[in-house]
């Protein structure tokens, strides 16, 4: 694929000494590009570095000057965020809700996409478009009735209830993304497996699903990020403080006003929320970008 070649080409630039008359202009363009890109990189990194440094300051230091470095590393901010602001508990809740939803939506989404792609029947087109409709309409349209659906099922303000809504709202994207993958898989392999005596379930689970792995990984990454960042669903449907997820715990800092906020804990909370995902991203960034380019080339 040309993408991988191009990536390699940019990552190992051949140092060519250019002697053509245009090289001066080239250098200007290259320099300008580096300058502009560096400025943007600073705009991205600077707030993160500032938050990181501020997370080690005392409240007095935070109020004194935004530019000073912390006089000594104030780890109390972290214990305060973790314990007093309950971020530890909320992190735990987030992990439970998101991981459970992710596993379920990947299984349900893959099964539905596979069935739709392999066994079209009269009406399956309608189902496909009904699923796509879920991608187009804003969650805000559904939020009020959804509140009462959960209430009637006794699932309001429960982690399983929240997880169930996560599954339902991640489902359309999962099907939409996996459907072309299953369409593209060669039918012959499934047919060969069936001739060898594998039933529908074994063909799906042991033959076709493993072949769709690259697509599954990409969808799982995007679903994870989307669900991890989800805000509206928990804020509306999960209002019991002991069951808050991380984004709600952080939002509480925003709704408190002025001096009531423990700013050191706020900064520490931001670091606690950002750093784990950032590290995972840096480790997996190559796969993620690979899947992004696959998505656009399709």
């Amino acid at each position, binding site marked *: 694929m*040309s*993408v991988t070649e191009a*990536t390699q*080409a*940019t990552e190992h*630039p051949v140092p060519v000494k*250019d002697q*053509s008359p*245009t090289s001066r*202009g080239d250098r200007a363009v*290259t320099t*300008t*590009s*580096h300058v502009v*890109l560096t400025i*943007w*990189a600073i*705009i*991205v990194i600077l*707030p*993160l570095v500032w938050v990181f440094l501020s997370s080690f300051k005392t409240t007095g230091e*935070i109020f004194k000057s*935004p*530019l000073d470095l912390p006089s000594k590393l104030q780890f109390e901010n972290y214990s305060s965020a973790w314990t007093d602001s309950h971020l530890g508990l909320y992190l735990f809740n987030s992990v439970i809700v998101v991981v459970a939803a992710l596993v379920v939506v990947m299984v349900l989404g893959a*099964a*539905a996409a596979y069935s739709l792609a392999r066994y079209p029947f009269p009406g*399956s087109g309608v*189902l496909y478009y009904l699923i796509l*409709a*879920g991608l187009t309409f*804003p969650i*805000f*349209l*559904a*939020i*009020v*009735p*959804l*509140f*009462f*659906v959960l209430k009637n099922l006794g699932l309001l303000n429960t982690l399983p209830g929240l997880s*169930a809504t996560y*599954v339902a*709202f991640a*489902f*359309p994207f999962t099907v939409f993304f996996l459907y072309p993958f299953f369409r593209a898989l060669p039918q012959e392999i499934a047919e060969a497996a069936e001739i060898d005596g594998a*039933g*529908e379930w074994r063909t799906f689970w042991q033959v076709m699903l493993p072949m769709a792995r690259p697509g599954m990984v990409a969808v799982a990454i995007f679903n994870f990020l989307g669900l991890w960042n989800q805000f509206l669903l928990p*804020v509306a449907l999960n209002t019991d403080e002991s069951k808050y997820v*991380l984004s709600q715990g*952080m939002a509480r800092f*925003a709704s408190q006003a002025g001096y009531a906020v423990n*700013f050191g804990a706020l*900064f520490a909370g*931001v670091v606690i*929320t950002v750093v784990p995902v950032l590290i995972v991203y*840096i480790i997996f960034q190559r796969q993620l970008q690979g899947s*992004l380019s696959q998505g*656009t*080339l399709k």
Partner: protein
Amino acid sequence: MRGSRRVFVLITLGVPFAFYALFVLWPFVQAFIYSLTNWSGFSPEFEFVGIHNYVALFQDDIFMKALRNNLLLAVVVPLVTIVLSLALATMVTVGGSSTGSVRGLGHSSFYRVVSFFPYTIPAIVIGLLWSQMFDPSNGLVNGLLTSVGLDGFKSFAWLGEPSTAMPVSMFVIIWGFVGFYMVLFIAAIKGIPAELYDAARVDGAGRIRMTTMVTLPMVRDTMQTAYIYLGILALDAFVYMAALNPSGGPQNTTLVMSQDLFNTAFKKGQFGLASAMGVVLAVVTLLFAAVVFLVNRLAGRKAN
């Protein structure tokens, strides 16, 4: 065999779809029904009031203000994000030498990886982080501005002034998305066959012409997708505004429909009216997507 296949499809498609229908499709349908009632949510009874809620909304100055704010966001945020991310992506991919084969910029993976950082940060945290950055007295922005001698910014309330609250909020959303779309555009540009660039170069096209004649037409569909996604996001914008200015900003300059809806439903308990707001939001979203499709279609016909 036919029978077992039918069972397979019924379970693999039927079970997920039933679940999806209960939690997504059915609430969507209900929202339309509720929007025609005066339901307060606390009593089981409600009356159908026809289009009364919709009439009330269009006479409600605050909701109309929120609608206008959303439309402004839907125009500015996608436009700036796409122009900026496409410019950065172009620099990364074709910023290298113009002789020989088209070459990307050296060390560009650093810019790519760093620019993507904000996409991994939850939106609520992005909002919190920037509300601290723009804090009048303790924020880094004013700290830097006063340290270079601009004392007028000593305790300037970026998010508290009617003239700056909205632009600053837009900046925060844009900051969160430029990196993602930059990576998307880099992938799209790298997917353009190198022969097209070579051919343009042989014809004597310079960088600017290569960008307008080759890159832009080839990434047009990616731009359309990006515009729709960003527009839908800007028509929501709930989480950013909730973090930056929970109460709608100075003189409601940053109030958006989703905030109004949320308060109307869960604070005032006017579920019928809130559902009507949801319907308006959905209709605006669909119209927006339709307009983007149409513009792209017309632009495409003109180019061919």
